[in-house]
């Protein structure tokens, strides 16, 4: 059930919409970058192991 927002419905909804959009975008970029970096590290560690000690 939607609360009665009165004449400011557009302002309130756009504020919530924009903010949540920005937060979700930040999360998406963070997770994408994080996955890639971790995958790249795993791959490079796998390559490094056979010929060395690390």
């Amino acid at each position: 059930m939607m609360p009665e927002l009165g004449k400011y419905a557009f302002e309130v909804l756009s504020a919530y919409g924009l903010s949540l959009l920005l937060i979700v975008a930040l999360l998406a970029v963070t997770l994408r970058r994080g996955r890639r970096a971790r995958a790249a590290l795993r791959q490079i560690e796998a390559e490094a192991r056979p010929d060395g000690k690390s």
Partner: protein
Amino acid sequence: MSIWEYANPVRFLALSAKVQPFAWAAAAIGILVGLLWGFFGTPDDFRQGSTVKIIYLHVPAAWIAINAWIMMLLASLVWLVRRHHVSALAAKAAAPVGLVMTVIGLLTGAIWGQPMWGTWWAWDPRLTSFLILFLFYLGYIALWEAVEDPDTAADLTSVLCLVGSVFALLSRYAVLFWSQGLHQGASLSLDKEENISNVFWLPLIISIAGFTLLFLALVLYRTGTEISLRRARAISARLEPRG
């Protein structure tokens, strides 16, 4: 046992892996409860109408925007004094989060200001200080991106963060001197008289806690990302010469 133990990246990652699930879950619960309660469960203000609901986004975002910079300042100091890489990387990880929160603070403020003050933007001290903070975040992030050697980048951005903090404070006072305010006083203070009324208070506190936990979770995760990138870089640098 001291806190410096976690300056070791492996220890840090282990702790971070333990803390992160709780941080993410608590952040999600806090933000959901705070925002949903605020959105559905609180009455309209008798002067502001339903726009008062924007406060549950505006105040937490502004809170994080300022505290993220303070956290970066502390992390930069730790890096300059004790040269712990995790610290420098945590500062780097926090900056974009702070930037996004600054933008949210400015945007929600503008959307709220249009019906209430009759203008999207006013050259009010608080608004202006926030715009300056936004510029500082931009400069800080741009400097990280521009310097190639990672340690030099950490050094230079730390110095910028230190000097920038001093100038940000100066700007704050300069701006107060320069213009009279439109913005209301602090929403939360220990002085009961100034405080907002109880109906709005609890969901706001929950929302702030949720945003803070989200910041913590994001920074932990992003610091982990930076550590991975740094490690990958170090290993490939070691491999290069051998062919």
